[in-house]
Each structure stands twice: as structure tokens, then as C-alpha cells.
């Protein structure tokens, strides 16, 4: 296989396209790649080599950002297998899930003080962990890409909520 700028993220990182990934190995690989391609390595070279290095370095960073985040990785797998997420067009969710989201929002509005918020953060983190486990099963065991896309969309809601809780905690910290 010839590595080039159009290779997909998994190819660039020398990984088979699966959800499960060894994070430490991924980090090490990122550094190995940047050691080869980073523009600083070519500071005294001619302008085009520098331009090439820049493009590669950017591409490597892009692939790394995608592969290291479980949600982005899952979404990318969906894309590679012809079932892109398209979150803007697909907003239908199971009722039970929507009810929980609404409950969480209400709880956040009513939360007062550090203890409440930290408890919410823990709850959301637990839900997130469960959903990520399910992602792995759907992706690597069943390889059911449309189902994976649904799960990714659900997880996007949860992550959005987790970030809102985080923002409230930030505000409290000031």
C-alpha cells in the first residue's frame, strides 16, 4: 500500500479499522509520525519540502484528533462504511432516551452548588462509559454500521450535556 495524503486515518496510523484502540500505542505512533513529518524537521530545506511537511503534519494531527476521541472514531468508522452520521438530518431518538435528556436538563437548571454539580458530572460520566462499551460491541463484534450511527448520535447528546455541566463547574471555580 502506498501511503499518501489521501490515505485514511487508520492507514496512516498503521491500524486496522476497528473501534477498540490501544491509546498508549496511538499516542506513541502520533509522535513517531510527527518526528518524520513535522515542519521543524525541515527548517533548512527548500520551500516545497517544507510545504509538503506542513501538509503531512496537519494531516497527521487531524487523524490523531479523530482516532483518539472515541466518539469521533466511531463516527469516522460509520463514514468509512457508508453510513455517515449526518446529525443535522437525523434527530429522531428513542423516547426513553429523550426523557432522560430532559430530566438531566431540569436537574442541571435546579442544581445549586458544587456537590450537586459533581454528582451530575459523575452520573453523566457513568452513562457515557456504558454507551461507549456498547459502541465497541456494535462496531467490532456486530459491525452493524447503521446501528452504530444511531448510537453515535445518542452519545453526541450525552457529550453535549457533559460539556454543559463542565462549564457550570468552571463558572463555580471562578
Amino acid at each position, binding site marked *: 500500500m502506498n501511503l499518501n495524503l489521501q490515505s485514511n486515518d487508520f492507514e496512516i496510523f*498503521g491500524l486496522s479499522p476497528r473501534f477498540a484502540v490501544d491509546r498508549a500505542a496511538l499516542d506513541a505512533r502520533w509522535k513517531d509520525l510527527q518526528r518524520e513529518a513535522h515542519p521543524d524537521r525541515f527548517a*533548512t530545506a527548500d520551500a516545497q519540502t517544507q510545504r509538503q511537511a506542513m501538509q*503531512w503534519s496537519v494531516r497527521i494531527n487531524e487523524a490523531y484528533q479523530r482516532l483518539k476521541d472515541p466518539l469521533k472514531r466511531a463516527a469516522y468508522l460509520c463514514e468509512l462504511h457508508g453510513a455517515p452520521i449526518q446529525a443535522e438530518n437525523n434527530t429522531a431518538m428513542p423516547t426513553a432516551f429523550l426523557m432522560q435528556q430532559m430530566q438531566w436538563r431540569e436537574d442541571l437548571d435546579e442544581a445549586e452548588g458544587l456537590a450537586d454539580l459533581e454528582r451530575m458530572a459523575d452520573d453523566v460520566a457513568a452513562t457515557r462509559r456504558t454507551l461507549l462499551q456498547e459502541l465497541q460491541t456494535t462496531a467490532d463484534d456486530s459491525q452493524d454500521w447503521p446501528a452504530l450511527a444511531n448510537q453515535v448520535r445518542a452519545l453526541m447528546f450525552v457529550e453535549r450535556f457533559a460539556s454543559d455541566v463542565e462549564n457550570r463547574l468552571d463558572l463555580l471555580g471562578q
Partner: protein
Amino acid sequence: MALLQISEPGQSLDPHQRRVAVGIDLGTTHSLVAAVRHGVSECLPAADGRVILPSVVRYLDPAQGGSGRQIGFDALAAQVQDPANTVSSVKRLMGRRRAQVADVDKLSYTVVDQDGMAVVETVAGHKTPMEVSAEILATLRFRAEDSFDDDLYGAVITVPAYFDDAQRQATKDAAQLAGINVLRLINEPTAAAIAYGLDNSSEGVYAIYDLGGGTFDISILRLTKGVFEVMATGGDSALGGDDYDQALAAWVLAQQGIGADLNASERAAMHAEARRVKEALSSAASETFCANVAGRAIEQAVTPGDFEACTAALTARTMTAVRKVLRDAGVTKDEVQGVVMVGGSTRMPVIRRTVGDFFGKEPLTNLNPDEVVALGAAIQANALAGNSRDGDLLLLDVIPLSLGIETMGGLVERIVPRNSAIPTALAQDFTTYQDGQTALALHVVQGERDLVADCRSLARFELRGIPPMVAGAARIRVTFTVDADGLLSVSAKEQGSGVEARVDVKPAYGLSDEQIAAMLQDSFATAQQDIQARALVEARVDADRMIAATRTALAADADLLQPAEREQIDALMAALATTAQGDDAKAIENATTELAKATEPFAALRMNRGIQQALSGKKLEEV
């Protein structure tokens, strides 16, 4: 481990052929230049043996003749009697409009807005912060060139990690005015970490607490196998040792019951005395503050306790930033293996104690906190100039502030989140809203807030030359690229037709190319240059480098080329070699560009092969 080495024939490791590359710490209160000699990074002294250059420039009345300015210790000595023309802490003005400079009224000189940037009014006219900084940079450049008795190839210049795009660009502009080739802008905490990383040879997670004269930076870095990765960075670009001086001066005035406004001379005297007392209290149990203000001599006894009390809020602000950056990095304070103290202000016992208590370990202070940034920058400059071969550190840095674009209703849509690894690029698609629209305007801002009004305006980009179509039919892909210096550039292409839009940048702040060219013409720091002769020399140097690089490339990877491509490249190389022997600078430039265009696809193939080959020996997983 094989590295992809691009070297030019004739470039050897012979010390006599090494390039002179230095690291420059352009600080708020003082600046330094350092270089690696005989494998050791050291600060270069001036003729009088002092390594520190106070970041102070005093402008003299042009009518008096002479050089028109004093730089460094001479200027500092004159500050109390001529505060209006003695510009200190100009770093606070870099990249800023007057309204954005904290406590601008407390400065001893007058700052006004001109062309959207803060400038200083002096007896020699209006001086931009870039010009003032360029005086300091030029002084250091000449010092380095004298030290090595050779021209300066380039420098790594450090900036606070929290500097935004405008502040970084201003720094690059200042370097250009001083005739310095900037190899890389690196963040001060990263530079300090490099200095400690090589001396202490440790892997792990480090916090860099950098309290300088005017800025505070806190960064979390991880060092593994020669790669420095910045995990997160934060700080306050308007908080530094100067503020501690001001707080102490204010406290003394309050204790003495002086409420009246002081004149510029008195303000300067109060600050100078505050700094002296602050430094004395690092080792004394009490110190007397003496000054002549508001018509009387004052004496105020100050204890470390008094000082810590009147500056407690400032120290607390630094710790808030520390907690936030730990959260951003996703590490706890216990996971931090070592805390590096950078900046003269970290000599304050209250700082060392507060930081030590928070992290539960003694901070690292064995390197001189005033010199450590310059030392680290020199190590990196040495590596970038190609002088060292093994053990080169690689810096993987991040963008400190999010980039966003203005959308409907004055909101910000974030396109590059803060702490993203750089270099990075993000593309977004836009379309037209009117039939036949051929131009598009984008407003780019920097910051974490949701409203454009609360963020820092970077630039307005006008994309022109979009092929006229029905409204909504155009798909304009705008690519935002942040380079390894943390600077933004924008390109745009209409996807359907493949037409590249012309991008006109109107920076919210900074000097235009014409302004810089004009300043250079005014024999600023590169006096008496015959511009034409210089153009010819530069064209020839570029041509030689292009030919040498092409020869190396062919020697290594000629098999990647088809015979016809090879012939074309050989022909263009020969043509360039012939043209370069003539005197027509323009013709040489054109021939160089021709060769560059022809070898572009070759360069791409080489890069792909290089990366693939270097990694083929390392399988990530056994399948």
C-alpha cells in the same frame, strides 16, 4: 531510528561551517540572547559582561543629533528623569489597541491609538511597539554577530504561550524590522521545559509556572523519548511582576495617606523603588521604602507579610489559572512530576511557597529563572539550523486560544478549539446568498466567549474571484491553517469550478507589508544597504540552494520519476545554473520558480515514501 534527513551537499558538521543560530527571550522587563557553543547552551554577554539587556528604549530629541536613542541599561538609568520618552515594558503594547492595554494610564509614557494600534508618543515622533521591540532585537542580534564574528542565520524568538495571533505577528514584524530571520516562534514555557528537559533528562508530565515582568503563563507538558507535547496552556497576558510592583506602590501611598495624583516622574520613581523593595524582601525580614513624592520625602517600613497581603489577589489569580489548565490537560496535580519556575518574579518567596504547597513538592529552580527561557530557545534554534544531529527535540505545541468566525447575530462559531495540536487546518464550506455574488467576507476572532464582541478580532478576510452563480450554488471551501508558529492563514477554493479565490487580509491590528517595507527603507536597522546588490546576492543564494536540494533529491529518489519528468528537471536545473551566473536577479528568480514548480510533484512523492519507509519497520499491532 532513521530520521528523514534533508541536507545540502557541502553542509557538514564542521564547526567552522555551522550556522549561527540563537535563541532570544524578548521579555517585558529584560531580554537575553543565547546560543549553543561546544554543545552547551549559554547566554551571550555584552561588552561589559552583563547578559541581561533591560527591555527599555529611550528616544532622544532628533535636534540634538547623534544616534537618537539609548537602549538597555543606559535607557533604564534615564527613566526617572525622562519618563515620557523612556519606553519600558513595551511588550504589553504588542498587538494591542490602547483600550486593550491594562492600566495604560499608569504607564510613565503616553500611549495613543494610530491606525488601530497602540503607539508611543515620544520626542522623536510616534513609535510603534514593533519599532521599539526591534531596537532591542537588533541590539541582541549585533551582540550575537560580534560574539561569533559572523552573520546571524536565524533566531528562535519566544513569546508567552498565551499570546494571540496579533501579538505573535507583531513579534515577527519586529524581528523583520531588526533584520532577523525567525526560525520559529516558540512559547516561553516550552523553551524553559527544553532547558530543563535536557539538563535533567527526565520523562514525565511537567507544569511550567512562568511569572515574568508582564505576563503569566502556565503550561502542562509531557516529555517522552525526545518529544515535548504541550497538553494544555493558559495564563494571563496582563499579569506579571510589574503588577506586584504597582500593588506595593499603591499600598505605600495608602499607608502614607497620599491620595493625590503623581506626575510621571514620581510614578516612575515609585515603581523603581517598589521593585527594589520587592527584590530585597526576597531575603530580608523588613525593608524601608524611600521616595520623594507629593512634595515630601516618605519612608515606609515593609515586611514580607505586608507585601504578601497587598499582592494576595494577584497570586490567587495565578492559581486559578493553574487549576483551569490542569482541567484542560486532563491531569491532576498529583500526576505532575515536576514544576518548573520561570521568570525573575518566581524568586518571590510567596510564589515558591504557594506553588510548592499546591503541588505538594518543591518547585525546580536550579537553572537561573531569568536565563532559562533564552537557554531553551537557543537549544531549539541550534536544532532547527541543522547544527546538531542526534538527540534533537521535537516540539508538538498547541494553539492557546480558540479561533472562530462571526456568524448571524454576532455569535462566534468555533472552528479551531484551543489546545488543538499545531500545525492544524480546518475546512468549512460556505455559499453565496445573492445571484452572481463574486466575493465573500469572513471575520475571524480569537477567544473562548460566545459573542463576537467579547472576543479578540483578528482579521477580516475578503475572498474575491468566486465564479458568479445562482445564489446558494457555489460551494466555497475555506481552509483555516494555523502554522507551527501559531499564526493563521486562510485560503479558499470554489469546489465546483476549482477556482482559487483571492484572499485579501485586513488585519485588525498590525503593520501592512507596505508599512514594513517603508520602515526598512528608512535605514532602520539595516542601514546603508545597496538594495539592488542585495537582491542579486539573495537570488543567487536561493538558486544555489534550489539546485543543491534538487541534486540531493535525485540522488536519493530518482527512481520515483518517469524518464520524461527526469529530463525536464535536468533541463531546468541546467538553465538555472547558467542564468545564475548572470546579473539579472529577476531572471534568476523566475528560473528558480520554474524549477520549483517542476519538482513539486516529485517532492510530494518523496515525502510519502519517506514517511512510509521510516514507519514500515514499526508495526503498531500484530494482526
